[in-house]
């Protein structure tokens, strides 16, 4: 006997609301890590309960043809994070400092210098992206979502996801390499 799919569990939860607890059991840890990476532990701890409450309230609208509820939960989380942009920006800057310090320094001291300059620039470039591109980039790069999952999370056609991600890449490249200078390519 195989475990019921998320869609089956959510379907059952329409008649037996407590069944929705299983969706939490299955995905809360993943969702919490996602929120934590984006906005830090404190914000994430506050948001994870809210996220699942919203999901519970909207469970009637879950597309039952999807096997996994996870992309849908990511989508709700992405919306919730909009209110926490400052926390996200702070965390991103902190991560840039840490990445710069931890960057492997096997070659010359010049490489370390690069890392110190590079990562804050990457953080700044991510922050400077238009919101929808930034979201697509982070779901792809940090959460390793497939195009299909991103399409479900962002409620967009898969082609739109692909082009949005391409625009994000192009923008990021521009932001990192003003006037085509190849400094960032040094690694």
């Amino acid at each position, binding site marked *: 006997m195989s475990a019921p799919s998320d869609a089956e569990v959510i379907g059952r939860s329409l008649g037996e609301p407590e069944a929705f*607890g299983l969706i939490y059991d299955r995905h809360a*840890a993943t969702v*919490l890590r996602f929120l934590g990476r984006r906005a830090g532990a404190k914000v*994430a701890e506050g948001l994870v309960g809210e996220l699942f409450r919203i999901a519970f309230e909207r469970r009637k609208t879950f597309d039952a043809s999807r096997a996994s509820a996870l992309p849908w939960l990511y989508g709700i989380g992405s919306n919730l994070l909009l209110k926490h942009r400052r926390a996200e920006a702070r*965390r991103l800057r902190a991560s840039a400092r840490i990445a710069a310090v931890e960057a492997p320094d096997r070659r010359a001291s010049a490489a370390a210098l690069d890392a110190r300059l590079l990562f804050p620039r990457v953080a700044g470039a991510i922050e400077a992206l238009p919101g929808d591109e930034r979201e697509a980039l982070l779901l792809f790069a940090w959460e390793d979502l497939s195009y299909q999952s991103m399409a479900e999370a962002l409620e967009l056609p898969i082609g739109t996801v692909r082009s949005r991600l391409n625009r994000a890449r192009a923008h990021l490249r521009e932001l990192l390499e003003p006037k085509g200078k190849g400094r960032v390519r040094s690694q």
Partner: protein
Amino acid sequence: MKPVDLARKLRRDAAFEPAVLGRGKDALMAAIQQEVEPRRRPTIIPQLPYADIRAALSFLERAFGFREIPASRMEGADGVIHYAIVEFGDGVIGIGTQGAHGAISPRSGGIESQYLSVAVADVEAHYQRARAAGARIAREPRGHGADVHAYEAFDPEGHRWRFVHQRLREVPQERTPA
């Protein structure tokens, strides 16, 4: 290095207390419970009379797994509880002061004029819990493990409770997603 790979370098996990997920689950289930409550208002509520309601509530929770609905409690200024509603699965039972509405606890009346049947998922486990909490068993369960169909027990005031194996309800067809 490609832009996405650079962005990936800034991915950093947050450190959480281990209790976070449990707290989130509790909050979710409480929210779910709130949504469930209004729809569950049953059309029939058995009212059981007790001489000591506080003791009865404590026993029903410990031994039988009932849960008091917090908003239902009526308590006097002297701290005496006059009434409360407990729930179990889809059912609720009123726990009232004996004498009110003419109902008498078996402890005072000396007779049981009724018994209550409660459907539970795991009769054997329920039986073990009730026994461990000191419930007086009126009828031992027969069979073993999943075969155990029912048992009966008295609460401290002599109400007789019958716990029977719950058949899983089927989800109505129109609610099942394709």
